């Protein structure tokens, strides 16, 4: 029975996301306030130049990878949970199909996302 471990990692992922997403949101959405206190250098955080500056550092590489992997896991576990609860007439086989489809979709997104993050890192450092 693996559901206990799925659930355990769902909660562990939540803790990781909590830390990493706070950084991401602080930088992306509270930048006005942070700049006011001089914590961040001024500039439009969405401009391409700023994106490359962030993509250059190893810290951001790690932050983005961690955030993406754990958020994908956390989100898709939650989605599976909700689907399973909503469709109690589904057979065991149907549940397995839903579980694997969600897993493969998430895996595809994770591979694409990792490629983007790593390619961005290489591009910015080139």
């Amino acid at each position, binding site marked *: 029975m693996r559901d206990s471990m799925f659930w355990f990692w769902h*909660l562990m992922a939540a803790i990781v996301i909590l830390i990493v997403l706070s950084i991401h949101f602080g930088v992306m959405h509270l930048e006005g306030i942070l700049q006011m206190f001089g914590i961040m250098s001024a500039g439009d955080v969405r401009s391409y130049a700023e994106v490359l500056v962030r993509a250059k550092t190893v810290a951001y590489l790690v932050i983005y990878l961690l955030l*993406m992997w754990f958020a994908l896991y956390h989100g898709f576990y939650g989605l599976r949970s909700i689907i399973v609860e909503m469709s109690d007439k589904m057979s065991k086989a149907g549940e397995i199909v839903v579980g694997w489809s969600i897993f493969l979709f998430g895996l595809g997104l994770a591979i694409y996302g990792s490629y983007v993050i790593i390619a961005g890192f290489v591009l910015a450092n080139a």
Partner: protein
Amino acid sequence: MKTVSLEKRTLPHRLGIGGWAYGGRYGLERYLFILHRIAGLSILLYFILHIFITGQKINGKQAWDAVMGSVGGTWFYIGEYLLFVAVAFHAMNGIRLILSEFGWILGKPKRPIYPYQSANMRIRVFTWIMMILAVIIMAVGGFDFFLMH
């Protein structure tokens, strides 16, 4: 002569998914449950789009500016703030859930002596503190979103 069948003729009476939204006069937590789900699903939907949209950064400045331009309208900006609100709520409620689902803040079992106090009521103050924190985060975010730009 009228005969009576012994077969059970029952009336289905399940609340179903509608019961998530409203099931009766329950306390705060039952409604936090459905809000947590709605917030979570919206964040997931945004997150999938977010991966594809920010993925454009590897295609150079032009592609980036083009895609940023297409999602730069007022409505998108308001949508982004709503996402911020959803994340603030989901995170603060999530902290409460993690701490209670591992049973860390719920205390020990007590003999049920009237008036009963459930574990949920024992931490009700904490629940409210987390909700107030969420509102403060939303307010700070709103200040940054709408007044500093």
